[in-house]
């Protein structure tokens, strides 16, 4: 195991060193030729569009969560709440927004699924254990629906507690979404420029 780690580290360092050497000796993306200037402009355009999309997704994510809060206030029974949350979880899934609290990534077409959630699902036996997204303070698109589980089981929470808990969770989620770090294409200009053009013109 130690040998493998050392070999891996050596390979990694060797590769980084080789990359670094290439960057020092090369100057792709640094010259003021027309192709480089255009490539830089296109990289800036990509980043601008990505940020614009990111902002729009945050706005949409927050709005659908707020819609859920607003609608859930009118619920008078757990069954009504169940219907509301299922309806909205479907909407969240359709909008495909996702914020992973562990890596603070906005979006992601596949979503990022913490193993803890899967563990929770396998251990689920009671009302809130069947809704790990509520219990753990996370709102996940596909698992947020309230399920009854065993029909004979007694619910450990009443509607007011459910509304209070879910409201707190969703408000926290809105806060996390708005404060999550932007993780778009942050990289050195020359790397993006190189990716766009160098294999074209070398």
């Amino acid at each position, binding site marked *: 195991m130690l040998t493998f780690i050392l070999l891996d580290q050596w390979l990694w360092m060797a590769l980084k060193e080789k990359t670094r050497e290439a960057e020092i000796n090369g100057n792709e993306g640094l010259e003021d030729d027309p192709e480089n200037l255009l490539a830089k402009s296109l990289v800036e355009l990509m980043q601008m569009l990505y940020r614009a999309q990111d902002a729009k997704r945050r706005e949409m994510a927050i709005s659908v969560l707020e819609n859920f809060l607003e609608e859930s206030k009118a619920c008078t029974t757990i069954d009504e709440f169940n219907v509301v949350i299922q309806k909205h979880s479907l909407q969240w899934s359709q909008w495909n927004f996702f914020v992973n609290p562990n890596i603070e990534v906005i979006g992601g077409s*596949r979503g990022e699924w913490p193993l803890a959630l899967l563990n929770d699902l396998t251990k689920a036996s009671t009302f809130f254990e069947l809704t790990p997204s509520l219990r753990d303070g996370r709102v996940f698109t596909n698992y947020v629906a309230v399920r009854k589980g065993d029909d004979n089981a007694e619910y450990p929470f009443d509607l007011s507690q459910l509304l209070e808990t879910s409201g707190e969770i969703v408000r926290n989620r809105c806060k996390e979404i708005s404060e999550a770090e932007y993780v778009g294409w942050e990289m050195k200009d020359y790397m993006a420029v190189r990716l766009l053009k160098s294999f*074209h013109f070398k």
Partner: protein
Amino acid sequence: MGDFPMGTTHVILVSSVNEESMTADTKALGRFKNAFVGNLSHEMPSMALCSYSFGGDDFSLFADYVGRNLPLICIDSRPRFDQDIDLAINTADVTELSAKFVELAKNHLESIDRDLFATGSWNFFDCSIISYLHSLMGSFVQARLRLESGSPKSTEARKKQVLL
């Protein structure tokens, strides 16, 4: 196993679980891939192939491949409108030509974003965007050569075209 593409003969499994936080952590996978592919490229002809998105990999991973002269094939799976328009016509200089290309890219990509948003989706096709902009760079070179030759469609300009 049913998810593996046909023809797969070897599979490498890399544990990507942070056991402290019990979350998926792909850093180890990324490091392994980079080291593995980098090592392969030292020993034998290698190429990287990507489509759709970058599969969760960092953008810079592919820039790193390219930086080490590893051939990279990006597949653009989006339909594109006909871009065979000569932006060099009625263009005064290279700076203006470059601005026209940026505007062309901006309009096209914004249009895609708008269409996707209208259907409740988002633009995740990072690889596709890169491919598109990459092809635009090629068109720019041709247009610039035509502009600089003074004859947008001259044979001489065509001879100077960079092989793509």
